[in-house]
């Protein structure tokens, strides 16, 4: 009988562990805060919505930065909440409907939010440019790379190929639209092969020569470029990248309507990983919040931690970010046409 009791005990322990794991989904505590705060300002619980899966890049950034916002925002206690689903739409919808009282904000990739809105993706209830933008944590150039053994060496070569360029892609993300517009502007035929599972799969397809080229974050492609497995032929960034002075940017080689598109795209990439709140936030709270984020992103302790984790911090103040977004809002209508065209081409 005693044995049976101990067995039951083991099962109960297991159950407890699983409960803890499940709860860990949400309450995984950020690093302990420093104790004594000089004055007990109005304590408030602030929810940080991360519409991406726990443990992935965006989530890692959010959880790394959150404790530092707490540190520089008196009285704030930030709870990171992963609300996943429909490629980030579920979490972003939730932010759109939350009260603009400064107690809820979000952190994710600006391009995905904007494109979900512009392409009228399933279930979108928000207007991407109407959120209150609070600050950017990081951005990095994106690169159009071809395989190391590819016959192409410059972006102009693609037009001379005399055959459709095979472009493996994951689906309707910013890279997909960028490639479609680029092909129109430079006059090369494009065969977008959608359906690859992720960035690793498209990278491998390009290295193997199954596809001609793909667009990815520069940091992802860098080791492969160094090893000679990939060749960069175009950058999506406001200026040429220091390490690759010979590789032109998308803005340089386009003109007219295509350049308008590339401007929006480049701005989108500039805004990349950012914090934003619901539309119509109180100006005073917004200023306070932006200042806290700016201070947090300049904290030397955070910068050291980020450098160690290879998650670089490239901050931009909330005001400046808001201006960038407003610029995008003014010209966003122009890119809807090319986007719809690109979508129609693959269906």
């Amino acid at each position, binding site marked *: 009988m005693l044995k049976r009791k101990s067995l039951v005990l*083991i099962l109960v322990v297991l159950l407890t562990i699983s409960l803890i794991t499940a709860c860990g989904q949400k309450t995984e505590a950020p690093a302990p805060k420093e104790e004594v705060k000089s004055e007990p300002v109005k304590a408030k619980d602030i929810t940080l919505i991360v519409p991406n899966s726990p443990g992935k890049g965006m989530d890692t950034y959010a959880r790394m930065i959150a404790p530092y916002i707490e540190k520089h925002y008196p009285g704030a206690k930030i709870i990171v909440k992963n609300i996943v689903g429909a490629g980030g*739409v579920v979490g972003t919808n939730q932010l759109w409907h939350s009260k603009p009282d400064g107690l809820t904000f979000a952190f994710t990739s600006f391009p995905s939010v904007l494109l979900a809105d512009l392409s009228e*993706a399933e279930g979108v209830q928000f207007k991407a440019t109407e959120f209150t933008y609070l600050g950017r944590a990081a951005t990095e150039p994106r690169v159009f790379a071809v395989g190391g053994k590819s016959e192409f060496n410059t972006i102009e070569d693609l037009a001379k190929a005399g055959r459709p360029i095979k472009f*493996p892609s994951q689906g309707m993300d910013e890279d997909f639209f960028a490639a479609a517009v680029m092909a129109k502007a430079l006059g090369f035929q494009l065969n977008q092969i959608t359906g690859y599972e992720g960035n690793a799969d498209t990278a*491998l397809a390009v290295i*193997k020569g199954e596809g001609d080229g793909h667009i990815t974050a520069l940091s992802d492609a860098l080791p492969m470029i160094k090893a000679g497995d990939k060749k960069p032929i175009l950058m999506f960034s406001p200026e040429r990248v220091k390490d690759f002075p010979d590789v032109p940017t998308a803005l340089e080689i386009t003109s007219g309507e295509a350049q308008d598109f590339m401007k929006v795209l480049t701005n989108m990439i500039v805004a990349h990983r950012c914090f934003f709140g619901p539309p119509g936030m109180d100006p005073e709270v917004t200023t306070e919040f932006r200042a806290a984020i700016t201070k947090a992103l300049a904290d030397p302790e955070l910068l050291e931690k980020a450098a160690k984790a290879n998650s670089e911090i490239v901050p931009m103040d909330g005001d400046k970010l808001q201006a960038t977004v407003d610029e995008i809002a003014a010209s966003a209508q122009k890119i809807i046409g090319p986007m719809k065209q690109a979508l129609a081409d693959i269906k």
Partner: protein
Amino acid sequence: MLTASWHGLLALFDPTSILFMSIGVLFGVVIGILPGLGGIAAMALILPFSLSLEPVAALAMLLGAHVATIFGSSITSILFNIPGASKSIALCFDGYPMTQRGEGARALGAAAMASLIGGLIGAIFLTLTLPIMKAIMMALGPPEYFIMALWGLSVIAIFSSGSLLKGLTAAGFGLLLSFVGMDPVSGTARFTFGSLFLLDGFDFAVVVIGLFAVSEMIKLYITGGSIVKAQTTSEMGSVWIGVRDVFIHWKLVVRSSLLGLFIGALPGVGASIGGIAAYGMAAQTSKNKETFGTGNVEGVIAPEATNAANEGGGLVPTLGFGIPGGESMAILLSAFIVMGITPGRDMLENHMDIVFSIVWIIVVANVITTIGGLLLAKHLVKVTTLPSSVLIPVLLPICLVGAYAIKGRIKDVIVVVVFGIIGYIMDKYKYSRADMAIGMVLGLMLERYMHISIKLYGNLFFLTRPVTLILFLVVLGTIFYPFIRGYIANKRNADESGVQ
């Protein structure tokens, strides 16, 4: 080469490395036991603790946790029909019937030993064949993945012995379910009825917990008694019988391990398919084909060996190009970067000792897990003799919490219950749940790679690419061989009787 291997081993036999590996293994077994959570969750949870360690100790802890989850998930698959991770689903097919027969310890023993040998063979062949594996990986692409998925579907014939029509119905239902959500090719929403929850599709791990575990609880509640229906002789003896089984079927172990290594080396072919493919291969080549699905120990050995060897295979694209061979390898990759190691050519040329350390870690972690598993098996099996009135109240919440823990969505708990009821009904009316699971896991892969292949190589891609054509013929051969063999045997019998 040999000196590098030796240095790699020496670096591992540092007390701290062994200590952290043991911690990792222990943690991995526990995570593996929890339904739905597998190697990915284990590595993601333990990653923050490993970053401050020495590279070898950190890798030992991470990989130790990852390797141990395989056996951890097999334990619950075999004893309770609860797949601890979606890749151990094939263990339920024969492992659980063995437990019901009172041979749970034998199944656990066989699984532990198969895991050990599979891991060893995987690691050894990985070392020997790293350059060749890289070439194979480069040669195969989406058209070949498509053919492999097609071959996987042929496994449904095994579970359809009662009625082929019922088997096909179940598999069709599984395929249909896999299409719920966003179409991977054009981004169109399918069968979602405007629900954002359904837009992400059904999570395979969640459905499987419902289909196998929850439905089993319902059945147990209705029939009463305990999981074990008949008790066999001395249990400790049974563990060793299981170990012996592995050596009796050593050819099967070698074949399954190589299959696992091969599948692991192909990014884009998921680990859940590895176990199912190994199971199908075992059934098609076995002498006792008809006992598969009713508790044949070969059905436990093959998927377990494949899963263990799979890990080594996953290292090929990770080490060779710095491209993760799966989600768990993506976590390993981020750990590398923090340590200042760049996977890819640089690693293969300048950090060969670390490469060998990794291979050795897999070997040693497997040994630790197996020894622990063999010693524990005797005690674990006793749990299955508990009456249902004790088991159900404990196991059912674990299943529900597990379903929630996978993505942290409460609606997944509803999904798990609904599929529990569906699973119970299917089982009652003899529609194979295994067929449904196979249809579901292969559906997206078939669809994805068929579309990509057509776009890359045209509509007749399976005829125009030589490698694809050969594979396609092999698949056709394995599907029709039993029929042809049966036909010839019949004819010969008819001829002989005609002569007489």
